[in-house]
């Protein structure tokens, strides 16, 4: 699969069909990008599970945190990797040991490991690399334009509002 660019429809379907996301490398420091993304996705209705040995056994924003993927006692749709490109290899190996298998491996902005991606794809998983699910969600819902970011999406359709103020969703009803 081509990892230089992803069609919007692929990203949209990955985000729509992933209900539970395990974020490996989540931080409890509210100035860190992994904390932001975790909090944002929680607020958009995803079931979030943290993976960080330093926070294992605690909760983060009310969500559970485990030391490793192996310890997560429930099925996970997406493993989101907030570690560097080299560390991604071991995390993908661990993800491929999970039962049931996750459907998606997502590596964060600047994280890319083509060998690990090929291994996951051979096992039937979808792999997205060098992207942030928060940014992609905000881009596809239209929210990111509020910050002057070029979403590269043109549409004559009204954005879909979530409950409350200033929240869009990618789930058009």
């Amino acid at each position: 699969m081509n990892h230089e660019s992803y069609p919007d429809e692929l990203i949209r379907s990955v985000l729509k069909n992933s209900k539970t996301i395990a974020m490996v490398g989540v931080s409890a420091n509210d100035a860190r990008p992994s904390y932001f993304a975790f909090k944002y996705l929680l607020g958009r209705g995803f079931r979030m599970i943290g993976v960080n040995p330093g926070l294992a056994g605690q909760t983060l924003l009310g969500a559970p945190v485990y030391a490793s993927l192996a310890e997560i006692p429930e099925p996970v749709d997406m493993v989101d990797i907030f570690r560097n490109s080299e560390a991604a290899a071991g995390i993908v190996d661990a993800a491929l040991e999970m039962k049931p298998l996750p459907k998606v491996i997502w590596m964060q902005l600047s994280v890319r490991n083509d060998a690990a991606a090929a291994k996951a794809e051979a096992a039937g998983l979808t792999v997205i690399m060098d992207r942030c699910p928060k940014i992609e969600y905000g881009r596809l819902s239209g929210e990111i334009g509020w910050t002057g970011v070029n979403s590269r999406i043109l549409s004559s359709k009204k954005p879909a509002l979530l409950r409350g103020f200033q929240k869009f969703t990618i789930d058009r009803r």
Partner: protein
Amino acid sequence: MTDQQAPGFSTIAIHAGAQPDPATGARVTPIYQTSSFVFDDVDHAASLFGLQAFGNIYTRMTNPTQAVLEERVAALEGGTAALAVASGHAAEFLVFHALMQPGDEFVASTKLYGGSINQFNHSYKNFGWTPKWADPDDLASFEAAIGPKTKAIFIESIANPGGVIVDIAAIAKIAKRARVPLIVDNTLATPYLIKPFEHGADIIVHSATKFLGGHGNSLGGVIVDGGSFDWLADKRYPMLSAPRPEYNGMVLAETFGNFAFAIACRVLGLRDLGPAISPFNAFMILTGIETLPLRMQRHSDNAQKVAEHLANHPGVKWVSYPGLKGDRYHNLAQQYCPKGAGAVFTFGLKGGYDAGLALVKNLRLFSHLANVGDTRSLVIHPASTTHRQLSDEQKTIAGAGPDVVRLSVGLEDVADLIADLDQALASA
């Protein structure tokens, strides 16, 4: 990196950033004339203040009308993000504020809008930022001006007072070797004529008051982030690469990736220095941009015909317009702006200073004022107005010698413009 095949320029000029209003379905982007925005709950407020959620707090940072303008210009330039501010000057100021520390230097082209030269030479002294001047016709002068304190290079694509095309790609190579960002003021070209990011620019600034808005009715400025500069590589830009005390130690380049520069200008510059654009002005400029490709083509076509006419006029000594064959910048114009060389240019009268004054006085359609990029044709005699405080020698170096007249050719019927110039020249 693009995920989709890009739509065409005219489609982007009308649609980018502007979905129907989510609350009302209004198809034209509404003027959100409000200072502030209600929070959903206390946690939402905290998330917005901590930059953890997308959304609006206060119109000094973001506003939904302004945001559509930002995304529109970012898309037209092929950038990752943009920030709209009160004026072109404000845009330049916020760019340098994000890049420079006291004691730093930047290299600037000598061929710039006079207001930019003033800002760099005088206002920036108070911040300890020093311009080193280089001549875009002599690329070695850019190399020579770069030193260990250099943080950026600043040029105009089509340079004011007109008639100058700058070799963006050549200067981009110099910037890359020096590992500093290249900032291009693309006001006179607009992305319709020249797209500086395609030639290696890292940051673009605009006075949106000119051709983007296009109707001479609203001030505005835009900063566009090309997403191409690696702020974390040398860590020479602490606003982007260092933990920011303003945001609990957040590192903007790490958090916002390839649109971190636009974010830095917004949350460190605009937030604290305050030159916000009014939502009404953002709306007026957005409306102008919808017809940008049509207008820029007509502006350039009219300017070409006016320049050709003047070049053959017995009262005219010289015309500096790169669209003319034989002009010193004609080859660069063919390379950078084959659709047209813009609408602003200068020419000289055989009768010198007095003839320049008489021409301005005799014109009936051209308006005598200090702006460019209006639907109306504009004229100014720099030696008696914008540059009158300079010595004759300084005027000549600045391209504002006693015989120089600057035109900004508008969208009127070109035959009427030529007739107006002819009658004014006849009595000049």
